[in-house]
């Protein structure tokens, strides 16, 4: 097991190389010269040239790439070009609000979706199945933007149930700030999740072992909750876990509208100011998270399905 984990973590090497390469190509070569942005509206050509030299943009491309690779493996991201802040510090600052917003929302959304999909799988083909599915799809057909604008106005402003915007560190201080965006997040994920889970469940529900379970005298609910769910877990886990890295940036819109100082905003700012070190750091962070999450997925697989062996 330990060996397996180590081996999988070694996978990080080629992936980080790949990520560094893509990021390097996309942002260094393509997005052009960041110096004009960094120096502001009165920049002179001379100063731009000096800055380019200072940022190492005059070095041979390969050396520049090596720098990217180096920071990918040492996790030494240095400072942001635009804000001059320490990147590790920026990430630390941003991770907390991002996580307290997205993680609970994500977990609740997943649990809700599981429950709802079990219910619709149970009543498959009946009216309630259709009704719930239409409701879920309706939820997801409305643009996030519309929810945000509407809910913020109604629930935060008119009814005053939540804070309009902002953030406080520490539990439970952040709750009134993140509750509303979290609810919107949940609403938006319910639709696709339920539909995917339902498909997987329906695939299982016609297996012979379900008939065996019925023959034992198990109630339909227990069959769904215990037998079917367990078997459906593998694709569900895959589906769920691969979403996790996107949690970092997933709430970009919500963060902006609710003034939550999370990583989404940091990334967007970086993209909007050619802040290459921050972009790089976020990409690397996300890929490390991704690999770790795939590893978790694989370990969860073995818990969910004894047939799966880590090798």
């Amino acid at each position, binding site marked *: 097991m330990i060996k397996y984990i180590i081996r999988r973590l070694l996978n990080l090497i080629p992936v980080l190389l790949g990520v560094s390469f893509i990021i390097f190509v996309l942002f260094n070569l393509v*997005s052009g010269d*960041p110096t004009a*942005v960094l120096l502001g509206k009165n920049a002179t050509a001379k100063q731009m040239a*000096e800055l380019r030299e200072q940022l190492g943009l005059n070095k041979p491309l390969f050396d520049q790439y090596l720098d990217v690779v180096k920071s990918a493996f040492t996790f030494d991201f240095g400072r942001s070009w*635009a*804000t001059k802040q*320490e990147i590790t510090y920026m990430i630390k600052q941003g991770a907390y609000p991002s996580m307290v917003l997205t993680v609970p929302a994500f977990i609740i959304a997943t649990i809700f979706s599981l429950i709802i999909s079990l219910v619709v799988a149970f009543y498959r083909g009946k009216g309630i199945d259709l009704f719930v599915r239409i409701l879920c799809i309706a939820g997801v057909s409305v643009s996030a933007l519309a929810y945000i604008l509407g809910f913020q106005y109604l629930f935060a*402003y008119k009814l005053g149930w939540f804070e309009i*915007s902002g953030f406080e560190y520490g539990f439970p201080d952040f709750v009134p700030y993140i509750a509303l965006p979290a609810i919107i997040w949940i609403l938006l994920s319910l639709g696709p999740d339920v539909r995917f889970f339902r498909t997987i469940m329906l695939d299982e529900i016609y297996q012979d072992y379900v008939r065996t379970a019925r023959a034992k005298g198990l109630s339909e609910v227990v069959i769904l909750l215990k037998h079917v769910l367990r078997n459906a877990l593998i694709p569900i886990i895959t589906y769920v876990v691969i979403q996790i890295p996107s949690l970092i940036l997933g709430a970009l819109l919500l963060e902006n509208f609710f003034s939550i100082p999370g990583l989404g905003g940091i990334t967007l700012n970086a993209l909007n*100011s050619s802040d290459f070190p921050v972009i790089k750091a976020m990409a690397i962070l996300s890929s490390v998270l991704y690999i770790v999450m795939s590893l978790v997925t694989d370990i969860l697989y073995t818990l969910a399905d004894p047939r799966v062996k880590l090798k």
Partner: protein
Amino acid sequence: QDNFDEREINLVSPEKIAGYDPIHASDQYSGNEAGKVYEGLFEFHPLKRPYELMPNLAEALPTVSADGLTYTFKLRKGVLFHDSPAFKDGIGREMKSDDVIYSLKRLADPKLMAKGWWLFDERIVGLNEWRTKYSALDATVYEEEIEGLKKVDDYTFTVKLKSPYPQFLYALAMPYSFIVAKEAVDHFGKEFLNHPVGTGPFILPRFDQSNLIVYNRNPKFREKFYPTEGEEGDDKLGLLADAGKKIPLVDRINVHIVVESQPKWLSFQKGKDDVIELKDNNIDQAITKEKELRSEHKEKGIRLILKPQLDVTFFAFNHEDKTFQNRKLRQAMNMAYNRAEANRLFYEGTAIDAQGVIPPGMGGYRKEFKNPYVKFDLEGAKKLLAEAGYPGGKGLPEITIQTRNETIARQQIEFFAKCMDKIGIKINVGMNTWPELVNKVTKKQHQMYTMAWGADYPDAENFLGLLYCPNQSPGSNGANYCNPEFDALYKQATVMQDSPERTALYEKLNEMAAVDAPWVFGFNRTRMYLVQAWLKNFKFMEFNHNQFQYLNVDLEVKKELSKKF
């Protein structure tokens, strides 16, 4: 959770604050934050208009040598830096000449790449040489004296300019030139930007750059008093109620970072913020067609402040593109742009048609001057277009206008496109992230782009420079406009001290450029603020980084009114 016991004001900033190093404080928002902690030698009078420079850390205006090149400054005594672990025993020491010289040199430090360097580039004797020397070396030595910046004694120093620089004192009033302490810079190193140690009215206990910034009153702030005189009418507006009182008048300032406009608007409506600037979409909710505050806001005691802004918006042509070297085409496009409609759609009719480069309120703007091509006249435009060689737009390639990736920017170009369509010119929208837009402009890869230029200081030179040939990309002349006649006059004007002759020259330059239509002129916009009844002493300021120390809050009123929110 409203605070009725402490004198606290709540403000919003629409942008995240990068940090507090003054030499990088290039935009209004970071300038505003730096201005709460740091101070410059001079500042603009908070009440008097037109803007008047008054000494701040300097004791008085400097004495200038006969050739206009050597300035001698006297510093105010007893100005203390904030307490900070950077100082011996953690107690802030007095600010002296060395600090000023150090702070100005920092702008030139090649290692720091200050955004404010352009202000002093090629201005001060020996400074550029000093910069060049150390750009090749590993560490910058500040101790090395240069001719242009000399300490006379602890409270006196001289600056020697290479050539006349009439805007020099303005430069010293800008946030870039705020005074910092060397100990603090050395002590905090790269983290200096998060640990501002200034002489200003507030100290910074909490800095969440993208969420909330909290300032407390600086208990050791020197004796500085609220002005006793202002512009005519300030008295009636209650702006002189605190005259002569020691400032700052409040104990705490909270600055909330709110990017999107809806939450900003709603929070203000809830009384959580004391003042907001009205932008695009909320204008309509706030004021009526007659530019009156809507009654529901009046009921809450909210005040509306409408003030013309020192800025100009424009659609710039890229004059390196052969197509746009055709003056008649440029004029035709100017005439075809329906400014009245655009004004109504985007500014609720509050903006003023820009007649030229210089906005009203600035020397060089002549009220009587009406640019003949800024008048909306479709027939005239069609005629000009035909004369330009493109009757009905035939033969003219499609034109893409580059802009920022913001909804309102897109809509403005969409509207522009609609206007141009009427005379047969096809316009496309090109949306860009900020770096992309800057890159396209600096690399001259655009046909047209749109932009707004706000004043750095109250001198039209700052605007006319946008059309000065040597400033072309990557400089501020993104239109790459070159007009030798204009350039010659401009050069002449820039070395002149403020005087009626110079103003006349500015007027001439402005009008010369205006009829040549280097841009499609847009608007001189109006700033709109909504102010809660309890916020006192708020007066619109273009260069407002020092404004906050003068603000006050009426807790009684706040308590009373809070029931209505």
